[in-house]
């Protein structure tokens, strides 16, 4: 593999430096590096980050290849600057056996756009009744370390306790979709002023908060690690902050859309805004941004949820829940966190690469940009301003809430172990 010299990039947003890639690793970082024998990428003014890691992606394969496949999903990931994604288990069949997780893992390796780390289901068929073969999935070629019934809450306290205890044997983590099922029966959107007016079934904040409160207490009791998926309310932030202050091993993620959008958008009845957990209020958005900045929320995860057009081009109640997010995540984070002064680029690298890799134990990702490290890198033109055009998405689905919206920043290059997957904004 040939050498690549990334010239004059602001590494983690700092002073301009040259980064020389040799083969699969970073050979040298410094100023005025020789371009001898290397392909040169002029990066003046751009920001270089460790390749992004998404702990929460829906790739839909196997089963819903009309929405997304491992290939289209990882191409979308590379477009968005990601070098590793964790694929959620709610496929058809459910990723609750070693066979299914190995298939997903293998497809990721074959396509080569980014590493695909399957997440295993906590319970058989996501039914919340019986533990899936967590150990077998961990021991498989996929080496599963993160387990989640995402899309559904592990609401039975005993099953959740057992799962938390069981994965300790191999250092796993349970990622909880916090949604008390009885409190959210018929839920269509955030319960509050807007739902009252629109007559849509309410998804109360307390349905999320009560499960988080229970699960951090369970994690404390059994001395295990719990990860909270797509945390969305100000109250949830308070509970996680309290749990961390108590030394409980809890980590939490927030999605880009919960950092930017509010339930006021549901007034359009446009199902592109239908997502689970639902868009919350301005107050929640503010709390989430603050918590991401101060580290209470550890990471940004996309909850990339592709759906075909027909599942969204209908009345609200009939529509599927979810939005695509891999290709717009960094732009949304720049708009909500960097351009607002809440987080610098080193902070973005921490929240979107280093920490998610640590939580998911994706060794080789989220590493420092320094000599000897794997060349998993993302180059961002942070000065770019432009409208989001879903027609250009690599994802098979187009259910983005940002169509036509002006967002800052654009990923121009992505390298996976020294191999370019994205060059000048185009997939290789």
């Amino acid at each position: 593999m040939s050498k690549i010299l990334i010239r004059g990039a602001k590494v983690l947003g700092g002073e301009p430096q040259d980064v020389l890639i040799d083969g699969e690793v970073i050979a040298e970082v410094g100023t005025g590096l020789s371009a001898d024998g290397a392909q040169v990428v002029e990066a003046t003014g751009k920001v270089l980050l460790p390749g992004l890691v998404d702990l929460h992606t829906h790739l839909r394969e196997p089963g819903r290849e009309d929405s997304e496949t491992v290939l289209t999903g990882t191409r979308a990931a590379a477009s968005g600057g990601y070098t590793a994604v964790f694929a959620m288990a709610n496929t058809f069949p459910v990723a609750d056996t070693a066979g299914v997780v190995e298939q997903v893992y293998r497809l990721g390796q074959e396509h080569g756009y980014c590493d695909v780390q399957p997440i295993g289901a906590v319970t058989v068929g996501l039914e919340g009744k019986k533990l899936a073969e967590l150990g077998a999935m961990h021991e498989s070629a996929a080496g599963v370390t993160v387990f989640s019934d995402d899309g559904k809450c592990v609401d039975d306290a005993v099953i959740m306790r057992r799962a938390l205890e069981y994965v300790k044997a191999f250092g796993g983590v349970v990622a909880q979709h916090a949604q008390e099922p009885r409190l959210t029966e018929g839920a269509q959107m955030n319960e509050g002023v807007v739902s009252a007016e629109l007559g849509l079934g309410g998804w109360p904040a307390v349905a999320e908060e009560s499960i988080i409160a229970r699960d951090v207490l369970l994690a404390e009791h059994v001395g295990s690690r719990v990860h909270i998926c797509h945390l969305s309310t100000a109250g949830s932030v308070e509970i996680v902050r309290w749990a961390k202050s108590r030394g409980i091993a809890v980590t939490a993620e927030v999605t880009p859309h919960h950092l930017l959008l509010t339930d006021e958008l549901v007034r359009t009845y446009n199902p592109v805004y239908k997502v689970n957990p639902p868009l919350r209020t301005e107050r929640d958005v503010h709390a989430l941004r603050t918590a991401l900045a101060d580290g209470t929320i550890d990471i940004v995860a996309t909850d990339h949820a592709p759906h075909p057009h027909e599942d969204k081009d209908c009345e609200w109640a009939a529509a599927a829940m979810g939005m695509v997010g891999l290709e717009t995540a960094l732009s949304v984070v720049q708009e909500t966190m960097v351009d607002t002064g809440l987080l610098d680029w080193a902070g973005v690298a921490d929240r979107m690469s280093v920490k998610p890799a640590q939580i998911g134990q994706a060794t080789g990702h989220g590493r420092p940009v320094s000599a000897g490290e794997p060349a998993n890198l993302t180059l961002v033109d942070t000065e770019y301003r432009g409208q989001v055009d879903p027609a250009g998405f690599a994802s098979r689905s187009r259910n983005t809430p940002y169509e036509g919206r002006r967002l800052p920043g654009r990923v121009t290059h992505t390298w996976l172990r020294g191999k370019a997957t994205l060059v000048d904004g185009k997939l290789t």
Partner: protein
Amino acid sequence: MQRHLISAADLTRDDAVLILDTAEEMARVADRPIKKLPTLRGRTVVNLFFEDSTRTRISFEAAEKRLSADVINFTAKGSSVSKGESLKDTAQTLEAMGVDAVVIRHGASGAPYRLANSGWIDAAVINAGDGTHQHPTQALLDAFTMRRRLVGRDTGLGKDLSGRRITIVGDVLHSRVARSNVDLLHTLGAEVTLVAPPTLVPVGVETWPCEVSYDLDSTLPKSDAVMMLRVQRERMNAAFFPTEREYSRRYGLDGERMAKMPEHAIVMHPGPMVRGMEITAEVADSDRCTVVEQVANGVSIRMAVLYLLLGGNEPAVPNARTNEEK
């Protein structure tokens, strides 16, 4: 006037008063030997009902026929939410047939809004009730009934309901009638109080332009009209209240409670009534109860709405008006 009628909140005071005044003109047609106007001759109106509602459908159908429209009834019960594509496909089928207006009843809140705003269809859309969201013609017929009874049939023309105190009682949480009425009555200057057990009041109600009370007895003496909402028996199983009898004791309207209302005050109900639970037979059958008038007024209101939405810049009842001018 707007092109569609989706929500009572979309109506300005002047729009609403125009509809009520037009409905008074339409009501005169019912007194004629031939209850028919040529106004919508050659126009096609579809009643698109994804949810059963014989009363509302018949009311719209009567209004459409009195205006000489060609009427198509399309019942698509059960095919809505389970197969999301059916609304769009159905809409486009109707569009291809050259339909001028669609009267839609749907179990999903927002379905008429989507129909009107998604570019699926060019026809005027009239919301005949969507989920727990809105039922604007119901609110208009209720306001029409109140104006006739509380202000006067002829003296009410051009007037709104300023200063009238209206109490709405019952399952506000699940009621599109309550939402529509709060919006419209506020626009028309009335003071609205909602009365319900706290379990049947939506979270977020505090931003609505109305008062909320849990106590019916203290509200009744200050009410010019009391509107009882239908309470579905299945709510009981979902723990919204302990028993039917307890609900009835606290929020039902019987003769004794009705006696606390001012002499002129009226009792309203959107129907169908559950006698014995939310309202006793004694109240339902009293002179103060306007349920039957509401049904008749519904036809007049729907005639007025169809006429105005489908481009009514001619006088609605030419003969009537020219007679007056003469």
